[in-house]
């Protein structure tokens, strides 16, 4: 999704890639989390979560998916 929505390359988007270095600032991160919520029918907790890397976002989504009992195959 980072590739599709933000025009980044596959090479750039690695788990350890730092969001700031990709040009994904705090505003863009929030924008992206909104997109993820819509795509996977997730609900963010509203609590601030430190998201510094692409991997941080993936882990946060994984956590929420488990907590909220979502099956990813159905969401897409």
């Amino acid at each position, binding site marked *: 999704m980072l590739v599709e*929505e*933000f*025009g980044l390359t596959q090479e750039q988007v690695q788990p350890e890639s730092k969001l700031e270095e990709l*040009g*994904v600032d705090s*505003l*863009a991160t*929030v*924008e992206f989390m*909104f997109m993820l919520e819509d795509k996977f029918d997730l609900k963010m907790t509203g609590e601030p979560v430190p998201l510094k890397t692409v991997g941080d976002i993936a882990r946060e989504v994984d956590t929420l998916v488990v907590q909220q009992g979502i099956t990813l195959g159905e969401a897409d």
Partner: protein
Amino acid sequence: MNTESADMQRVVVTGVGALTPLGEGAEALVRALEEGRSGIRFLDVPWAKSLNSALAAPVSTPVESRFTKLRRLTLDRVAQLALLAAGEALTQAGLDFSGDEGLHCGLFWGTGIGGATTLEQAYHESFLDAQARPRPTTIVAFMANGSAGQLSIEFKIRGPSFTYSSACSSSAVALGEAFLAVRHGRVRYALAGGSEALLTLGVMKAWESLQTLAKPDPVRPETSCRPFSRDRSGFILGEGAGALVLETESSARARGATILAEIVGYGNTTDAGHITQPDAGGQSRAMQEALRMAQLAPEQVDAINAHGTGTVVGDGVETRALKIVFGDRAAHIPISATKALHGHLMGASGAVEMVAALGALQRGIVPPTAHWTTPDPACDLDYVTEGARALPTLNTLMSNSFGFGGNNAVLIARRYTWAG
């Protein structure tokens, strides 16, 4: 108002940029005006059928493609237009503000509405669905000073920054205030101009309700805006951006920059009469103030870029104001109303028309008032209706911009000559 003082600087223009319905770049604008090409056409949008008429003057340059998706998150169309026009002006000026010079540049930007597309999208979603969440970047994309902020970030301009909003005179005010700031030593450089992008359903429908838009000509819709012609019926909404780089003469000369023209006068007055109806008194006072500041007699103005929107009332009032200022000579000054061709760019008008005026000054050719068909006793001056006119002696040019709310902004530019 006495604004003269010994330590005043001459203010020169070293860069211009424009993105308009007449194409990309200042050169494209100037050429199209000379050739009498119209940028007015029917919008090709899904919501066109919701309008009485979708006749408008859109920018056809693929603006979005010039920015990455990530960058576009915070850029409304109005800021995209601003960035492209300003980039052209700064490139021409040959200025790089990434170092300390950026501390000495001010930013003076005008817009009537700001990020109309973003705001309308947020409203649309919110009204249709109570659970809707506008995008997190909505606020920063639609705020009126969004363009100024984005320009500062892109070009590292770190002096004072201002956003002016006075409807149709917004960017003329921005230019005028930038001129004063450079003239009086507040800044060495100024990036000044304006942008507008309001061809959205809600805004266009609101303008339709106000009944100031031109009736589409059934045969040649691109000629529907006819300033100063008896059969005029209003203006055509447009979008675009215009940008100028102003700097002190001493700075421009020291760095060997090409000087395009000099800004010599600026007048700004308020009618204090009616929120939409123009006032010849307020307009003429603004012209007189600009002349006073420029230390010019009315006889020294060689050509005028009129506000000339093509409304029945507006063109008649401007004609009266010109007669108050120039007396009998008013009939002998070529007056161009370029909105007939590029449409009414609202907050961007003043800057775009100044870019056009500087092109006229440099080339010694004043653009026509296009689409004029019939004389009107209330508009009996020389509106250059026959087509572009060569004026080799063209030295000094006045440009008028008048806005709803009763603001009148007048700028005077002249060919640059070094006093030695």
